[in-house]
């Protein structure tokens, strides 16, 4: 079925009949695949299809179990990521590959510091600043990675890769944690590199990005290539169908408008230093979206609400003021929060699926002793419900594919059966097929009479899911939109702080 | 004699029973001397290791302007130069118990006799055991003074036909001695006597023997004159027939004699060797200090 236009020039980097197994389980089944200079090649597939594994093999971070990696037609002369970088094959990893205790500059130049016997701090700092400027990023070169929000960390990853002067640049879901504006910056860089003749490999679950960027698309399903296509040959629908193996319906559930009693009321809520004076109400059966730029304080607000950050102001549940000083208290009040930072705050990467799934609700699994039977049953249910693809149930969560980690995190949050659930970036890195499942799930929560807050930087997602949208800017609520007035245009204008009257044309954020 | 004088006292810290006793005697003597001679001031420092002791001595000279130093060297060799430096600075030096490696530095030397300690013990074994008797030995912390004692002991029993089955380090520690003795008892079917070489170790040894129910088989000689042990000797405990004195009170003697130098014109130069005597039921009473913690 695959019918891609044959390229005449020789590929730069190539996989020939590559297979990869982890233990007894084969993940990749004979992949053939080539990257050409001056071309953006997109690799798409469901969560766990093997995209990251392919990228790691290309970048020298994993060795194929069988098959060959060829650079310029010859066997690739590298056995590690570091050696690959030395010959110009650079990877932006899906998992962050930054040392948390080091600063932005130190990370960007790690392994290739400037200076002779002594480090040339000034030059490295200037170099970093230049890179960040190029990326239009306000990150300070001296910030420690530990202190940066995820989106900024991703920008640092990108800057680090750009600094590597690549011949081949492999990007594993670089846009997943970025906002539209940052994605635009990224795309400009990608286009610049393509023009310079760099061979690029790109993956994303946002199919519109693929349509826009890719000169060539390879569709992966369960570790095998099922389709290759040139630019314009596949519509987004076509890609989704090829990935999932079945036709996808409209991914957003129909809107409901039957909100019930007020479940949560927030009055004059401030989370120092940024978030000030937030008030809103949330009804039963309602999905409330919160939109805003990166750094507008959405995460801080959410973390304040569930007691993870010191906050002032009032929280009322069912009209009664409650004290929420910790996640435990929040849970006791029926409130749960799903973090946007699954690596640092969400999952124990070196523990197995069960331990992670039940961690926040362990009290429900037995009284004195943990009932591992019930835990296993819960995992089986979660695997089914959220379509978690794990080769083995007892594997470390860190070895799950990125999207499956996110699904597990969702399952973990939902296990507590919360009445009010705040989901920060619910579908980061989740494939289109599963996205609709998650949307349906969120919809079902609301239909059951629960209240959901969705924080998302994905505009269609916010619009498609929410009954009502709060827009935050600079730590304050910039406006509230619902019903007729809930349009992309209106949200964008509030997000950007553009005057309501100026009927602007800001289409992209 | 109204002139103020500061006497620095540097001794090892109370890391085992004997040193505990020595600390106690030092503090008692200081309290007593301070009360008697108001013009005397004392600086007491205890050290857990050689380095710390040298530091203490330096500090006393540099900041407390001591006129005299009473020192019980943790080890002889490394303290020789630092103490010599004190002497060279014109201070009075009293050395207690362990001599310096270079003779003639100290003005006054008050000491127990480690060689005698081992010899007296060995002679008792030789006199009270038949040829072919089997004994086990517990040694202290590996140090020169432990070597001196053990060498003298071995020399004293030489030719007696007494067989030393085992010699392991009990580190002058009850717990360690207890487990070493337990292992000896598992290992050796016949043991006729134990030289525990220290009363703290003897206590651990006794417990191990009691546990094995072999009290009747062997007797024990410890050393240093811990009050509980002296009591047993006085009470004619067959397990503890004798003890060997190595009095921690020697520090008090040294302090008193040194103090005399500053409160009177009594010439006090010289060497006072407090020999190690065999403590038997007959003379035990004169070694018994029920108030001492040791």
């Amino acid at each position, binding site marked *: 079925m695959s019918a891609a236009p044959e390229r005449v020039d020789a590929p730069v980097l190539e996989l020939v009949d590559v297979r990869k197994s982890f233990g007894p389980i084969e993940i990749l089944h004979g992949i053939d695949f080539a990257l050409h200079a001056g071309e953006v090649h997109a690799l798409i597939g469901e969560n766990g299809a093997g995209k990251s594994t392919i990228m790691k093999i290309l970048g020298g971070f994993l060795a194929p179990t069988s098959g060959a990696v060829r650079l310029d037609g010859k066997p690739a002369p590298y056995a590690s990521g570091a050696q690959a970088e030395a010959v110009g094959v650079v990877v932006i990893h899906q998992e962050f590959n930054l040392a948390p205790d080091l600063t932005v500059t130190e990370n960007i130049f790690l392994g290739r510091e400037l200076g002779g016997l002594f480090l040339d701090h000034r030059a490295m700092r200037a170099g970093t600043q230049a890179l960040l400027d190029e990326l239009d990023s306000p990150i300070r070169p001296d910030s420690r990675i530990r202190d940066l929000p995820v989106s900024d960390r991703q920008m640092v990853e990108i800057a680090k890769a750009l600094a590597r002067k690549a011949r081949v640049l492999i990007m594993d879901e670089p846009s997943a944690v970025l906002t539209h504006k940052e994605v635009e910056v990224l795309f400009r860089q990608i286009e610049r590199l393509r023009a310079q003749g760099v061979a690029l490999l790109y993956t994303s679950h946002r199919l519109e990005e693929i349509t826009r960027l890719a000169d060539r698309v390879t569709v992966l399903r369960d570790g095998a290539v099922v389709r290759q296509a040139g630019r314009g040959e596949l519509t987004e629908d076509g890609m989704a169908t090829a990935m999932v193996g079945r036709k996808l319906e409209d991914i957003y559930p129909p809107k409901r408008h039957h909100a019930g009693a007020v479940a949560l009321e927030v009055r004059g809520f401030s989370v120092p230093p940024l978030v000030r004076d937030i008030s809103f109400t949330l009804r039963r059966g309602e999905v409330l979206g919160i939109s805003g730029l990166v750094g507008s304080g959405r995460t801080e607000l959410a973390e304040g609400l569930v007691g993870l950050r010191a906050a002032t102001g009032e929280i009322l549940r069912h009209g009664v003021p409650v004290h929420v000083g910790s996640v435990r208290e929040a849970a006791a009040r029926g409130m749960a929060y799903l973090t946007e930072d699954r690596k640092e705050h969400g999952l124990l990467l070196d523990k197995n699926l069960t331990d992670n799934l039940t961690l926040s609700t362990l009290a429900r699994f037995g009284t004195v002793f943990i009932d591992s039977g019930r835990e296993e049953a819960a995992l089986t249910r979660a695997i089914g419900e959220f379509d978690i693809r794990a080769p083995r149930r007892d594997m470390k969560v860190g070895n799950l594919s990125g999207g499956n980690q996110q699904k597990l995190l969702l399952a973990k949050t939902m296990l507590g059966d919360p009445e009010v659930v705040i989901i920060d970036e619910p579908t980061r890195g989740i494939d289109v097929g599963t996205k609709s499942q998650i949307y349906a799930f969120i919809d079902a929560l609301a239909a059951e009479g629960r209240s959901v807050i969705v924080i998302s930087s994905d505009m269609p997602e916010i619009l498609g899911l929410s009954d009502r949208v709060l827009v935050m800017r600079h730590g304050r609520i910039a406006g509230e939109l619902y019903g007729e007035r809930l349009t992309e245009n209106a949200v964008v204008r509030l997000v950007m702080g553009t005057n309501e009257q100026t009927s602007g044309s800001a289409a992209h954020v | 004699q109204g002139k103020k004088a500061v006497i620095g006292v540097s001794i090892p810290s109370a890391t085992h029973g004997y040193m505990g006793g020595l600390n106690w005697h030092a503090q008692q003597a200081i309290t007593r001397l301070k009360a008697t001679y108001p013009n005397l001031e004392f600086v007491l420092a205890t050290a857990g290791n050689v380095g710390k002791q040298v530091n203490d001595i330096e500090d006393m000279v540099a900041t407390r302007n001591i006129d005299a130093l009473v020192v019980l060297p943790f080890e002889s060799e490394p303290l020789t130069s630092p103490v010599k430096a004190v002497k060279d600075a014109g201070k009075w030096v009293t050395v207690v118990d362990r001599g310096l490696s270079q003779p003639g530095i100290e003005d006054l030397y008050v000491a127990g006799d480690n060689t005698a300690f081992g010899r007296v013990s060995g002679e008792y074994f030789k006199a009270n055991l038949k040829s072919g008797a089997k004994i086990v030995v517990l040694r202290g912390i590996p140090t020169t003074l432990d070597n001196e004692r053990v060498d003298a002991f071995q020399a004293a029993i030489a030719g007696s036909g007494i067989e030393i089955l085992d010699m392991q380090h009990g580190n002058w520690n009850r717990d360690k001695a207890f487990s070493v003795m337990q*292992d000896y008892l598992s290992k050796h079917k016949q043991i006729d006597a134990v030289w525990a070489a220290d009363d703290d170790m003897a206590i651990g040894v006794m417990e191990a023997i009691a546990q094995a129910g072999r009290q009747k088989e062997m007797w024990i000689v410890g050393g240093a004159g811990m009050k509980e042990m002296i009591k047993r000797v006085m009470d004619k405990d067959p397990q503890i027939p004798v003890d060997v004195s190595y009095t921690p009170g020697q520090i008090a003697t040294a302090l008193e004699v040194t103090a005399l130098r500053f409160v009177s014109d009594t010439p006090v130069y010289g060497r006072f060797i407090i020999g190690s005597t065999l403590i038997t039921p007959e003379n035990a009473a004169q070694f018994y200090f029920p108030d001492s913690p040791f």
Partner: protein
Amino acid sequence: MSDTTRPDTARADLAKQAAAAPSLTARLPGLSALGPLLALILLVALGAYLNENFLSAGNVTNVLARSAFIGMIAVGMTFVITSGGLDLSVGSMAAFIAGVMILAMNALLPTMGVGVPLILAGMAIALGAGLLAGLGNGLLVTKARIEPFIVTLGTMGIFRSLVTWLADGGTISLDFAVRQLYRPVYYSGLFGIAWPIIVFALVAIAGQIAMRHTRFGRYCEAIGSNDKVALYSAVNVERIRLMTYVLLGLLVGLATVMYVPRLGSASGTTGMLWELEAIAAVIIGGTALKGGYGRVWGTVIGVLILSLIDNILILADLVSPYLNGTIQGVIIVLAVVLQRSKSSA
């Protein structure tokens, strides 16, 4: 359509495999986990080869009973280390508790008289003192947020010097008559098994169960693995951390309750270097020093390895006793080499 069948069967396979639940490799402890056990077995074999009395009931009882103090403490230490902490103070704490306990019993003697109530009072005091000491460490770590290394280095010095001070530099001894009554708690036993061994076994079993089958153990691992994640997962991180120190304090108290009847005394040297031995036992047993993974049964093996080395060195006249430390060091390292595969995997 033929190209869709392959992935679908593949997916079904995957699902089946996943459903097949914890696989063999995870259920069996695996070579890495068996490392210390192997080392223990080798040591036992060596001991039996070197000395026929090695496997005698008497020697086995001795070794096990001696291991009991460090053993109980090491079980508590496993939880502290698993949750990312450390406690250097346990040895001094044991000495301090022993001192306090003996002084208290001697003081209560005139009013209570020699009898079981006095012993029980002493035990209660020891456990109470252990609890308070552990609480102190725990509060300094969790509330004052000081590095555990520093907190417990500080309290190590404090406890040690307090007991020396209480003992006036010498030894604190339990009244003779009381001791006679108390002695059997160390020396006697049930069905021929000494009490310390029984208590240690119970502590070890309870510890293993607590680590694997209770929330507390699970939370300790979670906190040690990533305390931020634990915090976001509604785990009361501070309380669990505090509890590990309190538990350890209690176990030090319990160890002291078993220790005092042995020699009936405490001094400034009691429990010297127990902390190092306990930590070493924990690490030899396969618990990660950085936290996140605890293995109580491994700790028990670690403790046994350490006390067997001493036992064997004395039973066999291998070399100069000066070199005991060398052999000890070599065996410790070798015991861990046997589980090297773990970190290299």
